[in-house]
């Protein structure tokens, strides 16, 4: 379903790293896992990804800061999906305000994850350049 998709996962919890990367692998995607937003933005500068799964709370640079950096400093429109442990509306809105494209709650659901990734990468492909 996600064969060949290159997904960057920014997540500092080792258990969530394992769960997310295994799920992506089973779905056919290639994942790169980093434990902080500061590393994620460096990789976005140097490598091509189809989408980022971004945890919101990381030690040095959190998901909000990393996304704002990607949007405003790197000027990249790469799809960013927030991985949230809550479903609070104010958190969702804060994600969207930071420039994220969608928010999904942990623990991850394979179907929801796939649908979100396909939808956002398809939208990106049809937008005029």
């Amino acid at each position, binding site marked *: 379903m996600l064969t060949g998709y290159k997904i960057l996962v920014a997540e*500092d919890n*080792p258990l*969530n790293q*394992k*769960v997310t990367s295994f799920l992506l692998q*089973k779905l056919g995607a290639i994942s790169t896992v980093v434990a902080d937003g500061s590393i994620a933005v460096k990789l976005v500068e140097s490598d091509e990804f189809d989408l980022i799964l971004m945890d919101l*709370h990381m030690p040095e640079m959190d998901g909000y800061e990393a996304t704002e950096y990607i949007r405003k400093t790197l000027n990249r429109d790469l799809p960013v999906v927030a991985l949230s442990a809550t479903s609070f509306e104010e958190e969702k809105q804060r994600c969207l305000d930071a420039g994220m494209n969608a928010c999904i709650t*942990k623990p991850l659901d394979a179907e929801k994850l796939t649908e979100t990734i396909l939808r956002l990468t398809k939208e990106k492909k049809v937008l005029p350049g």
Partner: protein
Amino acid sequence: MFTNPPLLDLSYLFEISFGDPQYVYDVLSLFVETFPPGLANLEKLIRETDDFDAIHKQAHTLKSSASIIRIRNVFDDITRIDMLSRSKTGKEEIIARLDNVIFNFNKALPLIQAERGRNRPHP
């Protein structure tokens, strides 16, 4: 009719394992390695400090793990600790919730270890 949830619910883990016992073993091992020190740190922060920001951050990290390995009421109690510490209030309730988490975690740990043993890879 009210029914008590099971002490340990690994249904989500089994669902996402795609039938791979090595993966189940690895995830349970990671949980056993990371959750207890995180819980010990949370306990220290709650009992010895009023650093609500640090309590919130530690609770938030544990909440993610608790959503994967589901021990009775632990996810709900940690979520409540997370919420209260974000609003810097409810220290008494935070302590009560912490006691629940520790109690239920200690009860569930032998079951987690047993399941981990069942999925241990054979040489």
